[in-house]
């Protein structure tokens, strides 16, 4: 049976971990010292590139490569923004780091700032994390008192400030450019790319945006080397990954695993302790609500970014949501459609109107007021997926398309048995109508 491999969560449970003293006693801040005193920024970026660390927020972009996009000798200040907006339904991993080991994130941010030539890092944390924001602010304050933040950190000559910025309830601010406009004090409207944030981000300055889990992986890479990190996992899914297991499992939780050691089904059954009541699985969303749902028969796929991608979905943020055989997939589709309708910022017509249209059509089907042809209508709306400024519209399209495609029989049955269904005709004919 597969086991957890704890790197990011390794120190959890050691005493006083929320304090600098406790974190140091557990070996913390040694990587920062090593980075500032024994390494150059270029060396750090090389090491992170060597590790093949990919962004843990959902898009899985290579971190070292992202860092290398920062222009050299920029006349403008360079910013690092930590994306702690953790809002993708099903995802609850970053908060474990924030709540239980905040100095790991701070250490990761300081090393990353040094690597990209930044002297100012912002942690954009979702407003609902009241406690997390408090913990981070206290940790930053203490680190500043201990000479770990501010001027001449650890006597190295490197200056760096960190600041917490609280969001206030907007999923769109987890999108990196929405995060930046929000941090600039505006409505969190995403911006067109290019220019990419590495060239023109926060306050039109070069900016790197990294997820909490990504930044928290940096100290271990500095401590043990990129080769060590890469030695874990598969070719394209290196290191460890925090997985959030929720829904219909006996033991939901956040687990840190090496990818490639087990299948998706083994993870669900072993770590999740099986399905309540011994029921069967109907579907699994493997990477947060935006990722296409998978059917039970497709779950024997290796748990890596590349294998799940090849199976037509994505590991995304690492949020695995399990739905058992009692679940009404039309209802789930509506619930997610509602979410994206609520969270669309309204800038782009396809997203603003499309998310609403999804809700109207799926709601009608669920109420027994769907029309034959509605499934094709939904799939037709999905065709405009790449027509918006940011990926929120894509994120709304993928679940709807997947639910309709993979559980079409449930949608058609509701239409058939509803007010406008042609009850005396076989499904195929009703669909054609």
């Amino acid at each position, binding site marked *: 049976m597969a086991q957890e491999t704890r790197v990011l969560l390794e120190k959890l449970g050691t005493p006083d971990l929320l304090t600098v003293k406790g974190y140091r006693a557990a070996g913390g801040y040694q990587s920062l010292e090593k980075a500032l005193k024994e390494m150059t920024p270029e060396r750090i970026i090389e090491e992170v590139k060597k590790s093949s660390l990919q962004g843990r927020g959902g898009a899985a972009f290579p971190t070292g490569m992202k860092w290398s996009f920062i222009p050299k000798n920029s006349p403008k200040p360079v910013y690092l923004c930590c994306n702690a907006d*953790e*809002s993708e339904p099903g995802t*609850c991993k970053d908060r474990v780091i924030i709540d239980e080991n905040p100095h790991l994130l701070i250490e990761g941010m300081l090393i990353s700032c040094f690597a990209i030539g930044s002297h100012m890092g912002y942690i954009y944390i979702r407003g609902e994390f009241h406690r997390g924001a408090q913990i981070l602010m206290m940790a930053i304050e203490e680190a500043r008192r201990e000479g770990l933040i501010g001027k001449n950190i650890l006597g190295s000559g490197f200056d760096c400030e960190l600041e917490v*910025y609280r969001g206030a*309830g907007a999923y769109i601010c987890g999108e990196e450019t929405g995060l930046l406009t929000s941090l*600039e004090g505006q409505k969190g409207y995403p911006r067109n790319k290019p220019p990419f944030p590495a060239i023109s981000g926060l306050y039109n300055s070069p900016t790197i945006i990294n997820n909490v889990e990504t930044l928290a992986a940096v100290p271990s890479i500095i401590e043990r080397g990129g080769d060590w990190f890469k030695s874990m996992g598969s070719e394209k899914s290196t290191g460890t990954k925090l997985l959030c297991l929720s829904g219909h499992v006996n033991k939901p939780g956040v687990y840190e695993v090496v990818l490639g050691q087990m299948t998706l089904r083994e993870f669900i059954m072993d770590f999740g302790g099986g399905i309540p009541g011994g029921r069967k699985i109907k579907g699994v969303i493997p990477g947060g609500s935006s990722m296409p749902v998978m059917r039970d028969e497709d779950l024997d796929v290796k748990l890596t970014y590349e294998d799940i991608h090849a199976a037509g979905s994505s590991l995304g943020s690492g949020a695995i949501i*399990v739905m058992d055989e009692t679940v009404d997939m039309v209802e789930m589709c509506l619930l997610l459609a509602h*979410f994206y309708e609520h969270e669309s*910022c309204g800038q782009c017509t396809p997203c603003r109107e499309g998310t609403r249209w999804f809700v109207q059509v799926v709601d009608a089907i669920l109420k027994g007021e769907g029309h034959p042809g509605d499934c094709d209508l939904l799939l037709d709306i999905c065709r405009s997926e790449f027509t918006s400024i940011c990926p929120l519209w894509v994120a709304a399209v993928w679940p709807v398309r997947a639910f309709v495609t993979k559980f079409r029989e449930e949608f058609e049955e509701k239409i058939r048995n509803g007010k406008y269904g042609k009850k005396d005709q076989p499904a195929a004919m009703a669909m054609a109508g």
Partner: protein
Amino acid sequence: MPSMRETCPEKVEDILRRFPQRKSASIPLLYLAWEVYGYVSPEAMEEIAEILGTSPADVEGIASFYTMFPLKPLGKHHIEVCTNISCHLVGAQPLMSHLENRLGIKSGERTEDGRFSLQSVECLAACAWAPCLHVNGKEYQKVTAENVDELLNSLD
């Protein structure tokens, strides 16, 4: 009602000092207004506009964009129930219905005595400890229709 610059000038100044560009202070100032007045009042938004050198309409646009900012007074105990997928799968709907029945209000409303307000919200990132709700921002995990009365009774 005294302004924020009258009641807590040092907090306003501290917020303004934290950012290289003044406008970034808008969201922290809206939080401060919420803290000072119990909600984000029209007068507070006018004051924030003045501080930032922008229009009240601009500030109201920002305040209403972010769902957390209350534009009207909340109950003494503001209950936010996650109704998104992971909570939904393990009983958020019965929990919400129970709260609506027990409190006699729907989502978005406040009880007549002002003690409770109720709001269904999107994912609160407590998916592995679902169902989840917040009371005045404090998180409670694994709350169900069966055990929520205990929590309600513990609130004064």
